[in-house]
């Protein structure tokens, strides 16, 4: 099996040195195939029951069950083909994988580029005792996909591969390292409510209606009968009751989802490659996931607190790191939980406490800018409702004004910034108050911005750009006098340009008038 045998190279394999040619190729674990046989049987079961027990033969009800059975068989077939065709190996410099039946691919990822090694297992994988290993190389900007997945490896060889690639010594895995954070039952409270609860309730009801319909049970009719039996009318009270019931159902669904996804959560710091360390999260009840992140790429941390749950202290914690993006698993190092825990974990992860530094409040003019926006939005609501005639516009104003003015106040209250040792702490956001601590050395550019209203109010927005996290973080609406010192604190190179808030000794265009 030499590289020349592969007809098509997705990522060019390196020129094989004499040493890499001898590294043997390894295979995937066959146990998944046995579990797949079980899946085929299970996926055919509902169809068989509907056909033979309930004697359903209409196309509408049988087609989805056929699709389910087809999905089971297809999944098993692809797993089997993948097991037959896939080989992988770890050489001194690269991780290589060749796979594919019709389209052969040979992919090589340089080991020094590997940033995350993520092992997860769906229920099927757990039955078979195998893991799916996803290797991330931080090239997700262009390809929106992981560098390489190996589905499936036995639990031991997955662990072995992870240690091989992240350089974690093997003997340390035996003793459990102390957890920076561990699962807490009380976190359920923070995850049970929200707009998604309603969506989830609707989905559950629809799913129940559909599934029961297959077996000849009419859920809508049953609700109608229930309503008649209780003697309920379609009044406002009944409507409110229905909404509350939906919210409760949604909350139960969200709680169950949270528990299955986050049960046995543990965040640990483990030794990594070249004396560095990695942050590892493990979680999941049925489907376990394990994600390791190289700490040398950490540039800061970001806490986000949604407005409606501020009184409860609900906080999302995410890492500001290069080579991972906000939607990826890699940045979330803690499930949504109380602020106290988030702050403790942030301090432990950063090894410093920049988030406790007192923030500089922004001037009252920032509140005036927000109030102006609020008035514009309120006026817009009134105007939009005016064509309805009558008093509709007044109602619109009465509803919109408190909301927009409240948001303006909340947005102003959350503004703040601080320079704390090597950290830059920025806080802003009305609906979602986001506090970000960013390492000053990670700043790769500064942008000072002023709109006409900001010029009149003597405000400016300073935006620092960085290679990590969102790409840029802003201190909004600070006093002009503070903007330039902040820019210089973030980026010492900006100092020579500081005369007259940015309008520096600069040349015009090309040095001569443009045509």
């Amino acid at each position, binding site marked *: 099996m030499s590289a020349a045998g592969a007809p098509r190279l997705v990522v060019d394999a390196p020129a094989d040195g004499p040493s890499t040619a001898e590294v043997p190729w390894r295979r995937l674990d066959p146990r998944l195939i046995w579990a797949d046989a079980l899946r085929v049987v299970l996926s055919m079961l509902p169809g068989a029951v509907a056909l033979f027990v309930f004697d359903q033969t209409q196309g509408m009800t049988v087609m989805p069950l056929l699709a389910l059975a087809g999905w089971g068989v297809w999944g098993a077939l692809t797993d089997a083909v993948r097991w037959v065709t896939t080989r992988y190996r770890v050489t001194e410099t690269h991780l290589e994988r060749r796979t594919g039946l019709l389209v052969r691919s040979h992919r090589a990822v340089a080991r020094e580029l590997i940033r995350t090694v993520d092992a997860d297992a769906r229920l099927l994988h757990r039955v078979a005792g195998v893991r799916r290993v996803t290797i991330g190389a931080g090239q997700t*900007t262009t390809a929106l996909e992981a560098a390489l997945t190996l589905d499936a490896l036995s639990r031991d060889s997955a662990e072995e591969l992870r240690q091989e690639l992240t350089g974690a010594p093997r003997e340390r895995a035996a003793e459990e390292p102390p957890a920076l954070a561990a699962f807490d039952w009380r976190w359920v409270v923070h995850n049970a409510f929200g707009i998604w609860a309603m969506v989830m309730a609707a989905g559950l009801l629809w799913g129940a209606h559909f599934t029961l319909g297959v077996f000849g049970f009419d859920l809508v009719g049953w609700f109608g009968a229930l309503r008649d039996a209780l003697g309920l009318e379609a009044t406002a009270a009944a409507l409110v009751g229905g909404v509350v019931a939906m919210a409760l159902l949604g909350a139960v669904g969200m709680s169950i989802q949270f528990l299955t996804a986050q049960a046995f959560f543990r965040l640990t710091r483990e030794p990594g490659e070249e004396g560095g360390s990695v942050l590892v999260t493990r979680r999941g009840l049925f489907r376990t996931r394990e994600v390791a992140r190289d700490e040398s790429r950490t*540039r800061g941390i970001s806490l986000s607190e949604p407005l409606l749950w501020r009184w409860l202290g609900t906080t999302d914690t995410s890492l500001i790191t*290069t080579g991972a993006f906000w939607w990826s698993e890699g940045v979330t190092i803690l499930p949504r939980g109380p602020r106290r825990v988030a702050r403790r974990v942030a301090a432990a992860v950063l090894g410093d406490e920049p988030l406790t530094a007192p923030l500089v409040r922004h001037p009252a003019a920032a509140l005036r800018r927000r109030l102006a926006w609020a008035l514009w939005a309120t006026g817009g609501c009134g105007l939009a409702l005016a064509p309805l005639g009558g008093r509709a516009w007044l109602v619109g104003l009465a509803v919109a004004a408190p909301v927009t003015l409240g948001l303006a106040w909340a947005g102003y209250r959350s503004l703040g910034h601080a320079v704390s040792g090597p950290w830059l702490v920025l806080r802003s956001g009305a609906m979602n108050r986001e506090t970000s601590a960013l390492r000053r050395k*990670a700043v*790769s*550019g*500064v*942008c*000072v*911005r*002023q*709109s*006409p209203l900001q*010029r009149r109010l003597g405000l400016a927005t300073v*935006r620092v*750009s*960085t*290679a*990590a996290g*969102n*790409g*840029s973080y802003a201190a909004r609406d600070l006093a002009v006098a503070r903007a330039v010192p902040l*820019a210089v604190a973030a*980026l010492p*190179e*900006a100092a*020579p*340009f500081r005369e007259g808030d*940015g*309008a*520096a*000794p*600069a*040349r*015009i*265009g*090309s*040095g*001569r008038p*443009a*045509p």
Partner: protein
Amino acid sequence: MALWAARGLAFSLPLVGVLAVAYAFWSASRPWTGPLLVAASVLVPLHAVVMPLWRYRVHRWESTEEAVFAAEGWIVRQWRIAPLSRIQTVDTVRGPVEQLLGLSTLVVTTASSSGAISIRGLDPGVASEAADRLAEITRRTPGDAT
């Protein structure tokens, strides 16, 4: 200035064109496309004259041994600074309008995903000279580009 006027017109003229077509062929829309067309006939030429003049007064750029600086905008103003130690690539780009007018754009990118600094409407000679100089300094300046 001609560059900004051309860019402004390239955006606004198609809009006016769509409005005019709607006015001509879709009679039901005339009550609202009519006033919009009148407004456009005043605002578009005004925009094409005022915006370039204004931008020309605001736009500045400079590069030192340590950083690149650019001021831009007309209604909303922006000052951007990128240190040379974080610069990843320096390009000169010439779009079709710029080629017509004999101008060039200098694009400086850093590792951040939040956007490159582009300095539009430079003399091609100055732009390529600046690009060479920046590339040279970037090579000499040690930096991890993160």
